[in-house]
């Protein structure tokens, strides 16, 4: 029963748990002012976990472990690496965040949530999937409302909780109907049953719609996006970054596995629906970004739009489509974490999140301004940054599958994106502080921030220039879906 494959399949989870346990044991012995070192421990531990699982936990042929609960394949493996990377970067960004970084339990919650995400990426059974989603969400509810003294944070936590519970319940109802119709909770058995036609398409599609509510909440597609701006704005900025990247990617991991594996033969009906949702998501997300003046809200709405772009790859329902979604998410995680990281670093010094407050930033810290430029140009989809290649492959997948109209909508939306992203850069590079005395207001970076931001910037540039390895991994992961 306890084979090496079993261990390999849950190696990252074991290691994350281990890091969490070490943290629990060590942290109480630290003095108040040393507690922030938990961030080093978490980030370092996650990096070690990444390396160890790269060395010893590589999957071979896709196999089912833990009695069919878990699918051990490249898709899950690649996503797990992404999540752990995002978790490590977030841990670093949390370190100097006020009232968050000095509390050991924040890091523990982050690790618990990561554990859930890792399981989301691999679960091949509805029960496991539900448990994984809850494991991910509950720590995030707490983290979003972590700043108890801040009303907005409390509101964010509560709003996230209510929305989360509502949508997850609907999804759970969908899961129970699946079990009722098909008599199985295993995604792969379900796929076989659907192929043989044991389940009527109409009931399957109804169920699918219910499930989509839960996933749509996770990846914040319109109309399940309402929570995103308020929650991002209110929650501590590093957590908002984590929510908008890893948590969203985890939702996509479930989305592609569920839809590509179990329901491909109902394709025309749900892909059209998803295509329309993607078009609405992009457009609404982008139009709502236009009037935003708070950088966190701006990034929140723009992340809704990015979910729409990534959906084009899902809609395509081809191998290139799946690979493009995964590639898009990799580029997006690095880019958006960088963007949020800059917001974290900036507001640590200034305490401000308004786009206007970024005036004169390029004179206050030219390096930080350049990193911000990289992040925003990557979000815009400009080379040589990751966002460009990601957008091109997603659009390519759309064109290949014959969704040219959707790609054209995507293109119009990216032009809108150019406007608001470059608008922020205008504040950073052109406008000046009221007294034009930027040299007296430097924006210094602390060590964890410097490390995290530099690594993320290099990542964004590497994905955008040396894109072959990333794409090949995405493709290897995508192959497991067919």
């Amino acid at each position: 029963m306890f084979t090496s494959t079993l261990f390999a399949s849950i190696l990252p989870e074991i290691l994350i748990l281990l890091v969490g346990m070490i943290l629990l044991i060590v942290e109480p012995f630290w003095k108040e002012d040393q507690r922030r070192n938990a961030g080093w421990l978490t980030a370092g531990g996650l990096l070690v976990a990444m390396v160890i699982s790269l060395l010893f936990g590589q999957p071979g042929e896709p196999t089912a472990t833990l009695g069919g609960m878990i699918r051990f394949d490249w898709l899950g493996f690649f996503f797990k690496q992404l999540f752990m990377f995002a978790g490590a970067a977030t841990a670093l960004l949390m370190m100097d965040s006020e009232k968050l970084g000095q509390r050991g339990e924040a890091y523990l919650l982050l690790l618990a949530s990561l554990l859930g995400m890792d399981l989301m990426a691999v679960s091949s059974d509805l029960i496991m999937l539900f448990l994984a989603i809850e494991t991910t969400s509950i720590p995030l509810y707490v983290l979003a409302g972590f700043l108890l003294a801040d009303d907005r944070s409390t509101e964010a936590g509560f709003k996230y909780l209510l929305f989360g519970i509502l949508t997850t319940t609907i999804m759970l109802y969908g899961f129970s109907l699946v079990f009722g119709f098909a008599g199985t909770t295993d995604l792969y058995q379900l796929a076989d049953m659907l192929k043989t036609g044991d389940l009527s398409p109409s009931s399957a599609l109804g169920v699918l719609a219910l499930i989509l509510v839960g996933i749509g909440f996770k990846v914040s597609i319109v109309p399940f996006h309402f929570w995103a701006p308020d929650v991002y704005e209110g929650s501590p900025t590093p957590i908002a970054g984590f929510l908008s990247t890893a948590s969203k990617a985890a939702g996509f991991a479930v989305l592609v596995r569920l839809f590509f594996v179990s329901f491909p033969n109902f394709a025309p009906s749900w892909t059209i629906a998803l295509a329309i949702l993607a078009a609405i998501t992009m457009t609404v997300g982008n139009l709502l970004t236009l009037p935003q003046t708070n950088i966190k809200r701006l990034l929140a709405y723009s992340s809704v739009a990015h979910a729409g772009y990534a959906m084009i790859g899902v809609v395509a329902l081809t191998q290139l489509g799946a690979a493009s979604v995964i590639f898009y998410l990799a580029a997006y995680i690095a880019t958006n974490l960088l963007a949020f990281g800059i917001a974290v670093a900036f507001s640590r010094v200034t305490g401000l999140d308004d786009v206007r407050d970024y005036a004169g930033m390029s004179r206050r810290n030219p390096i930080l301004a350049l990193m911000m430029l990289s992040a925003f140009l990557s979000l815009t989809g400009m080379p040589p940054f990751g966002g460009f290649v990601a957008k091109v492959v997603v659009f390519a997948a759309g064109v290949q599958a014959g969704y040219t109209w959707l790609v054209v909508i995507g293109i119009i939306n990216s032009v809108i994106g150019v406007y608001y992203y470059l608008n922020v850069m205008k504040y950073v590079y052109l406008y000046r502080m009221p007294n034009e005395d930027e040299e007296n207001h430097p924006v210094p970076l602390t060590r964890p921030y410097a490390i995290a931001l530099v690594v993320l910037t290099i990542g964004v540039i590497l994905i955008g220039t040396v894109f072959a390895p990333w794409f090949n991994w995405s493709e290897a992961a995508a192959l497991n879906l067919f």
Partner: protein
Amino acid sequence: MSFPVLSIITFTPLVAALIILMLPAQRKNEARAVALAAAIFALILSAWVYFTYDQATAGYQFIEKYDWLPALGISLYFGVDGMSTPLVLLTGVVMFTGVLISWGDDDKHVMAGIQDRPREFFAFLFILAWGVFGVFVSLDLFMLFFFYEIAVFPMYLLIVIWGWAVTREYAAMKLTLYLFFGSVISLVGVLAMYFVQFQNTGVLSFDMLQMESANFSETFQNIWYLPVFLGFAVLGGIWPFHNWSPDGHVAAPTAVSMFHAGVLMKLGAFAALRVGIMLLPDGAKYWQWLIMFFAGVAVVYGAYIAFVQTDFKYMVGFSSVSHMGLVMLGFSTLNREGLLGSGMQMFSHGVMTALFFAVVGMIYDRAHTRQIPELGGMNKVMPFAAVGFIIGGLVSMGMPLFSGFVAEFPIFMGVWKEQWLVAVITSISIVITAAYILLNVRKVFFGKMPEKFEGHITDITVLDKVAITTLCLFMVLIGLYPSFMVPMVESGVENILRLLGGF
């Protein structure tokens, strides 16, 4: 594999930009020195490419190919032909002169050059140059796109940060949105071509040489030619999508205007030729009349609008629209003469307009106005600039013995062969051009110098003179000795004609 000269040329600006960014912010002169060194290096290499290109064998030369993403058929595939070699040289020339013009001195009276954050300025300018070189040498469609976009976004920053304070925010955003929209529309077309090629031939590749034999059906070509060609041609300033260009030129700082009008607009024209006409030749024939119409309107209308401008820089900006219209007009003929003229015009106009913008910038830096009625008598204080501008003006009018004639004459010949009426109508532009150039030369450089300028306005710097001399050299050289460039471009035209099926 021989010496990888094209990739060295292409990546020189990038390396220089990175080095410049690593310098401390106060080291302004070091940033300028690195920029100049890199520009000279790139100029020497591009001249070397130009002179060692073997015109007898023609075709694509200096080929380098490195697999970049084999799974999608993307490779770093560099090579130049008779069409792109002059443009590589042009980029080298404009880059060199642009750095000279932006040097800036710390003299408080003259606001010449770039004094505010020169480090970022040169870094962004060189990232732009990186993209430009990349487009001209890429034979891989994906990488062409990659470099094309790289050439677009630094423009925004360069204009918005260092541009003319009155219109820069508006103009920079307008320019970026136009260009980005155009390029992504072409992108859809390119992706469609990529997948249809796969259907037709089973080859999944962005290799443009392979795509030439992809057997695109006529309907496919007719549908996709317009988005692809016009998407790129937006950057070439084609009417009715030219609106961003004069605004952008005017708002940009001098060196950026030079780059923008001198090289960047060629980028659009070149990409439209290479991707639109060369890969979708049947579509080009089908839509020939429409492109000819657009280009014809651009030529005449641009010249007329330039004529009525009172702002010196707007005048030059609209004259660029008119002259780039000639390039597009040459493309639309799809015959030997027209294409040859277009190839020559791309180089000639690039050098000429760079010179125009340089001189306009020099005048503005000293007089702090560009209103033509307020200017006068500049010849007395800056005779060198005046001579340069007059030479540029003669080129612009298409005078024999200057490069403009070598370029414009074949274009009109080509148009005459296709549709004589268009040739007659568009040739009006020559008259209008002569009118506005001569009138403005008289007013700005001769005439009486307003009293408020007496004693204030000083002569241009040595670096400015070097830049003007370099640019004039090419205009006169090609005019007196057309064989310097004509056979080269002709060898490139042969290839296009072969794709068009011996039109």
